[in-house]
């Protein structure tokens, strides 16, 4: 995804002064009565305003879940739209409390940009889309192809790595946005379009004849997308981390948006559910919240499976399968740490 050299440069210059607004984010958020959540200016299925101007998407739902856990209302979110260039500066300068912006967790971002990443909420990977007419079935046959690629992103670097490893050449066609890439690709100015597989799927779904295009089987990079908070406020990082874990665990335990209220009324037979719902133990106070924090988050947006299905699942226009993002019991790698 977008890697910002500019913000990296800004940080190199400013990391010395990046100390304000660090401690006690929880208190700030409670005092403000609103969560400032850093999202993108528009990525299909992850964050985009609908016709009424209401934000929707996976990232948006995670913002709402955190707001519900902390403030008791999933609507009390102020979405801060950011570009790939500004997202980390906005978070680190304190204008955003938490970031869910389709962001790949990398070592340099974690350590150098001083972010604390939350558990992964979507496992993505970079793929290729190509017109069926060209008869290419593998990325290894792309020697000499012209490729539309968003500039300044990790996808650009991954692409160079992949072609170098396989000893084949390509001709990059740099574009700025996804929409531009789409126009260029459909207009025949590049043979291949490469970006994260989720992006390819949603782009393809919007074509007039989606079946004329195929997504090649090769996934050339790991893109674990997750939320992030600033360094220096571990309690706040814990809240983000456990809200994400709770939503994933809720699916595993069969707690849904509809059934959460009922299950939260009284302790049941399953101690894992009881701990999640706050009917057993005292886990909320460990992160500075009450014991119904997870219950409220699930009531606001549903469990992970429901979030996935609503925004990018097989029944939506994007139509992605769960794949890697299935629960570990179902062959995926979603594996929430236990709440106990």
């Amino acid at each position, binding site marked *: 995804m977008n890697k910002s050299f500019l913000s990296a440069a800004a940080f190199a210059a400013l990391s010395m002064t990046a100390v304000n607004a660090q401690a006690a984010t929880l208190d700030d958020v409670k005092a403000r009565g609103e969560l400032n959540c850093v999202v993108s200016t528009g990525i299909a299925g992850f964050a985009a305003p609908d016709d009424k101007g209401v934000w929707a998407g996976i990232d948006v739902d995670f913002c709402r879940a955190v707001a519900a856990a902390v403030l008791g209302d999933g609507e009390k979110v102020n979405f801060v739209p950011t570009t790939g260039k500004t997202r980390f500066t906005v978070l680190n300068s*304190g204008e955003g409390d938490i970031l869910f912006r389709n962001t790949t967790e990398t070592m340099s971002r974690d350590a150098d940009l001083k972010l604390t990443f939350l558990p992964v909420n979507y496992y993505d990977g970079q793929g290729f889309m190509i017109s069926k007419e060209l008869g290419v079935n593998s990325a290894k046959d792309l020697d000499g192809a012209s490729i539309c690629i968003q500039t300044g992103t990790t996808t650009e670097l991954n692409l160079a790595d992949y072609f170098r490893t396989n000893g084949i050449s390509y001709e990059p066609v740099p574009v700025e946005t996804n929409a531009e890439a789409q126009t260029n690709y459909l207009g025949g100015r590049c043979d291949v379009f490469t970006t994260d597989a989720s992006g390819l799927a949603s782009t393809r779904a919007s074509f007039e004849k989606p079946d004329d295009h195929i997504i090649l089987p090769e996934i050339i990079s790991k893109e674990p997308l997750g939320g992030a908070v600033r360094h220096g406020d571990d309690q706040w990082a814990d809240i983000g981390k456990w809200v994400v874990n709770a939503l994933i665990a809720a699916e595993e335990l069969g707690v849904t948006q509809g059934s959460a209220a009922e299950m939260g009324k009284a302790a049941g037979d399953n101690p894992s559910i009881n701990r999640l719902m706050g009917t057993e133990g005292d886990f909320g106070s460990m992160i500075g919240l009450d014991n119904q924090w997870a219950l409220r988050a699930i009531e606001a947006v549903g469990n992970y499976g429901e979030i996935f299905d609503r925004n990018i699942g097989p029944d939506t226009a994007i139509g992605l399968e769960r794949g890697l993002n299935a629960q570990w019991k179902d062959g995926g790698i979603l594996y929430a740490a236990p709440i106990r």
Partner: protein
Amino acid sequence: MRQSNQGKQQYEPGTHPDLPPPLGTTGPIKWMRENLFSSPTNIALTILAAFFLYKIIPGAVSWSITDATFIAEDRNECRALNSGACWAFIAQRWGLFTFGFYPEDQRWRVVLAFVLLLMVIVALLWENCPGRKVLFKFALIFPFVATWLLLGGFGLEPVATDKFGGFMLTIIIGVTGIALSLPLGILLALGRQSNLPIIKYACVGFIEFIRGVPLITLLFVASTMLSYFLPPGTNFNLLLRVLIMVTLFASAYMAEVIRGGLQAVPNGQIEAADAMGLKYWPAMRLIVLPQALKISIPGIVNTFVGLYKDSVLVIVIGLLDPLGIGQASLADTKWQGLSTEVYLFVAIFFFVSCYAMARYSLYLERKLHTGHSR
């Protein structure tokens, strides 16, 4: 004598009626002969242009009007209904494009502020406007009224500035920038010519610094760096920061445009003002500036138009102007891929506003034309 006039009509002296001029020296034919077919090169160019128009216009009309869809729920419905443009996208998102995320039940406030703005603009720009004097007084308090209407408080529900977006945002940035950059620019231009070294070098330094830095950099500074420089806990509104940066940027350019005008005013005018016993400010206000500003009108309007269009750069710092709303909208799976419609729509909006400014500047130039220009 009779024979020589055989077959010809006779008129008494003074009663000869005016005959129509020969065909081809008037009307459309004359115009076409003079403008389109006056030389072989022109004939070739005309035919070429006509050919291109013939190729383009039918396609453009059918795409944008006859084959277009105006009412639909999503893009697939558009596709099912017709093959052309999907204007339903714009129609469905009209509110978003106009008001951004401003709460729906409060949008009347924006409309009211806009209507008041139009009244003030008409009063300021049109000399024969009825009730001009009253409106002039109102223009002085208009900024406060508009701020109150848009932001709320004092009896109205407060609305945060991050809910602003779309055309509303463009107009706020444009109007504020235009209204503030002209006086600031005048002061900077005068300061640059001042005999007082501190004022002079402060103005020169400011102008050269701002002109030497791209607007996008200033916006980045405004959006991200300021938070580091300001003391912790200060919450400095993002829109306000953008307004300040845009205004400063435009005023630096404005200062140079006006300096050009000032230099065109002959020195004798200032000396004459001195001889009349006028002090610096009256001399500037009554003698120099009216002449200098009149000369600078094209440049000033040019700067205004540039500033107005530059407002789309705010998307890089996450404010959603019409273009930003358009890009965000394209990420909605319901409408993905309709970029042509969005960009065309935004282009039309900007063209209409900028063309209006250009026409007004021409009108003003003609009105103030007092025989000096060639």
